[in-house]
């Protein structure tokens, strides 16, 4: 049984990783077609020279960082609040947020923005995307932090209060340090979800807020393209590095 499982695991891991490896290999192919014709960095050079793409990547990063900060801070505080005293409607909304298909979230946000824009002189742009991303990341943060809180000993906080700490002090000095790994994990999750989002972003983005997934999707729709392989490899590599880095940080 042990041996059988190990063999199976090899195939399973191959299934998960080989497609991405093949993508990466062919991003160095000098020809457009699936036949290897020599090593070349031309696609990477094309990617580096594409102003549109670079702008989209920068946008994606800015949005992800802003949304992650907002979602993590608000979400951690909310999780703590829910842990102290639960709130049916807030929990219910979180649930709703996780259950709603992305297309519905996106379209409903667009409807809201269109409606608001009739009164305010605004238009779709980076701010609408950041707001949308923070909104849908919030539930993920709450779930992760709340799970960690569930295993926290309430009496520790009570002891701090008995010793004269304020409510906030107890939270800050006692509970928060315990939560740090969960907060870090939640932030990672929120960041990844934001960087990768296509459906919601495509609906609420404005003229100045093209993101990387939007560019990737437009290219993918037009068919296979080695430049897209190059972009994919860069993204996977970049995100992979980020994750390994955060794992290292988490361990220390």
């Amino acid at each position, binding site marked *: 049984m042990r041996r059988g*499982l190990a063999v199976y695991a090899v195939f399973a891991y191959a299934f998960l990783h080989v497609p991405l490896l093949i993508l990466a290999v062919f991003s160095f192919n000098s020809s457009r077609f699936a036949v290897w014709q020599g090593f070349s960095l031309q696609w990477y050079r094309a990617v580096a020279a594409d102003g549109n793409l670079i702008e989209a990547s920068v946008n994606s990063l800015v949005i992800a960082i802003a949304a992650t900060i907002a979602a993590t801070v608000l979400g951690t505080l909310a999780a703590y609040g829910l842990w102290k005293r639960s709130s049916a409607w807030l929990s219910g909304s979180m649930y709703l947020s996780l*259950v709603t*298909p992305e*297309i*519905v979230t996106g379209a409903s946000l667009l409807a809201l923005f269109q409606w608001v824009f009739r009164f305010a002189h605004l238009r779709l742009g980076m701010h609408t995307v950041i707001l949308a991303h923070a909104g849908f990341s919030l539930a993920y943060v709450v779930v992760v932090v709340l799970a960690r809180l569930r295993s926290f000993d309430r009496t520790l906080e009570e002891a701090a209060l008995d010793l004269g700490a304020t409510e*906030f002090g107890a*939270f800050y000095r006692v509970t928060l340090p315990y939560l740090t790994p969960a907060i870090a994990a939640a932030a990672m999750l929120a960041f990844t979800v934001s960087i990768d989002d296509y459906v919601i972003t495509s609906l609420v983005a404005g003229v100045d807020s093209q993101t990387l997934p939007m560019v990737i999707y437009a290219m993918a729709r037009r068919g296979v393209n080695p430049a897209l392989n190059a972009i994919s490899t860069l*993204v996977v590599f970049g995100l992979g590095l980020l994750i390994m880095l955060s794992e290292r940080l988490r361990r220390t």
Partner: protein
Amino acid sequence: MKLRNAFVAPAALLTAITMLAPLAIIVVYGLLTRGAYGGVELPWTIENFTGIWNPVYGLIFLRSFWIAAVATALCLVLGFPLAMFIARSGARKNLYLSLVILPFWTSFLIRTYAWMFLLRDTGIVNTSLQALRIIREPLPLLYNDGAVILGLVYGFLPFMVLPLYASLERLDRSLLEAAADLGARPLRVLVSVTLPLCAPGIRAGAILVFVPCLGTYLTSDLLGGSKTVLIGNLVQNQFTASRDWPFGAALSLALMAIAMVLLFAARNRGEELL
């Protein structure tokens, strides 16, 4: 309690703006009529909701269910042995777990594109099979339901493996040993002891895979060749090309209702997420 309320307030505001208000607008739109070139206008009507009760859309819902169910089942069958392997791998557990999580962290869009690259007629799968003389003509691997299911399984497998692993890890090994001591063969132990004990994990994994698969849009769009309309594509279409917001709103609410019913039915007692 004042602190607690202060803590909760900003998140509550964000949720109200990005979740509840939009949803309210969607409900209202569902009851209005489509404007001549798009947009919404009066009169109030329930035609959008009654309009869903139509064999054409029923077929779309059924097909979406079918594809999501097959993808979920495949994820379960493929993911369970992998989760078992990781749970039993002792010291290397974290490494193996990271190897599963790593693809999950990278872009879903890119992972879908990877299959476009592999499966097309001049892609590597076909050229290899032709080179090995297993087939003469390239197989039409792309642009069909099978490709969509493959894309979904590939995208959501980690979602299944993680809860399964969590369940398996918490398993009391002594129970399995007891069953073996009582004379049960390994297969019997698996079916009668392991699987039932993992039920919460299986349930969680199934929900985490099935619900997103039901509303999938990207996979069927890129790998399905625009030939099949699933619920996700249909809704997206109403909000963009067809410009029929009221009908799109009605469909969205129907889809959400289904998802909520499923979640409610699969709830774990005493193991709430939130």
